[in-house]
């Protein structure tokens, strides 16, 4: 536990040692603002809620989260610091969890900094703040899901660009699983049970449910098992190929 904390601390502060944190947070805030107010018609809808705001988050995360996760392991490999880390008296799960939590906390911070949007809707009307809180929770879970995928993929390569591109593609797949088009394409080929099963892995469905203010245990279980699964794979990959 102490080791997880030390690794978390180093990693989290690491974001602020470079312009990474600043650039990420500014771009995240600009884009989420632009999407919500311009494209999402927050004002014109005449409803005081944050549905348009949260509706864009999966698409924002699709590019921004891999940009955060790509460096998690690829950079350790490139700098050679992975040799240092893996010869310290820490276990692989401690390092994997510490690093993941740091990245998650960092995206959580960016998410918290969108509070002016929340202030705006409260100023304009009387939104259901409980639903908004659920939306934030859902968005945070979604970010965690994307991050765990990105972390796992980052552990495969020492090239951050490769880590970024593969992560975007895999995350996109997870977002598209339940689109009607995808289901159509698959319908002739695979049994319906399988389509339903695959659709059940879609981020969108689980995220939308939560962001509408309905926190269902099944959606929570989905995100937490997804994160666990990918972090587990992350650990296995590291164990199998620490040095090369």
């Amino acid at each position, binding site marked *: 536990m*102490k*080791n997880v904390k*030390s*690794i978390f*601390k*180093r990693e989290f*502060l*690491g974001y602020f*040692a*470079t312009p990474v944190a600043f650039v990420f947070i500014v771009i995240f805030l600009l884009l989420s603002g632009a999407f919500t107010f311009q494209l999402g018609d927050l004002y014109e809808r005449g409803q005081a809620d944050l549905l348009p705001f949260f509706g864009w988050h999966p698409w924002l995360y699709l590019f921004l989260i891999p940009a955060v996760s790509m460096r998690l392991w690829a950079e350790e490999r490139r*700098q*050679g*610091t992975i*040799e*240092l880390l*893996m*010869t*310290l*008296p*820490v*276990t692989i799960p401690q390092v994997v969890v510490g690093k993941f939590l740091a990245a998650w906390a960092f995206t959580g911070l960016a998410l918290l900094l969108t509070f002016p949007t929340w202030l705006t809707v409260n100023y304009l009307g009387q939104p259901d703040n409980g639903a908004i809180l659920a939306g934030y929770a859902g968005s945070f879970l979604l970010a965690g899901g994307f991050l765990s995928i990105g972390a796992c993929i980052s552990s495969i390569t020492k090239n951050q660009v490769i880590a970024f591109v593969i992560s975007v593609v895999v995350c996109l797949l997870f977002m598209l699983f339940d689109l009607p088009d995808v289901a159509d394409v698959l319908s002739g080929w695979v049994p319906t049970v399988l389509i339903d099963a695959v659709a059940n892995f879609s981020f969108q469905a689980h995220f939308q449910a939560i962001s509408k203010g309905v926190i269902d245990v099944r959606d929570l279980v989905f995100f937490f098992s997804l994160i666990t699964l990918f972090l587990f794979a992350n650990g296995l990959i590291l164990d199998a190929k*620490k*040095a*090369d």
Partner: protein
Amino acid sequence: MSALLEIRSLSKAFGPLKAVSNVSFDVQKGEVLGFLGPNGAGKSTTMKMVTGFVTPTSGDVRVCGHDILQAPVEAKKRIGYLPEGAPAYPDMTPLSFLRFIGEIRGLDGPMLHDRIDEIVKTVHLEGVMHQPIETLSKGYKRRVGLAQAILHDPELLIMDEPTDGLDPNQKHEVRNLIRRMAAKKAIVLSTHILEEVEAVCTRAIIINRGTIVFDGTPTELEERAPESVTKNRLDWVFRTLTSDEADAPQPIAAPAHLQKVAKR
């Protein structure tokens, strides 16, 4: 008393390349072992296996009785390791870096503070403690790596080319440091500087193409050279033992104790 480091028939293959084959030796407390060999001989690979970074193809490593694969955390607690090239987080300052390593090594509070102060004086990092590591010169980076390796006063110290990139003053200081620490530890260091072996090592192992070709004291190593060689006698022996050409200066029969190793 059993050895601090026990290595038994350690091998590592990268595809068809046998980087290390069937290497066995023990290192006792008080020994300073110079690990020599030409480029690509397998020195770094052996050290990476000893410290648990590279998984051996076969063979065992025990550190203070703890198997590096079965009880990695227990073994790693007792090792201080300076990897080749002294990697460190470039964005961190030496101070934050050493604090991080110290915390992981189980030091904290005033104890960690005092220990860092002490180490900083030992390897002369005063003045650069608040500068990002990426802006440090090569020699200073190496010192940070050295500081990191000895921070927790490990029983077994493994250093891959510790004096590479240091100025003559620092080389001298590091050698003194090694001599001072020697009594309480087992130290393994790799180097390409043969004088260093004479200066600090109690024992030398030469490996060539992944196998041990010499294991003995520096004096024994020097005595391998015939009387006719008067200058750079260690160089002469090193080249003779590790040259692959057919016209090598005089083939030398495998030393008696190596035949023992092979039988084990």
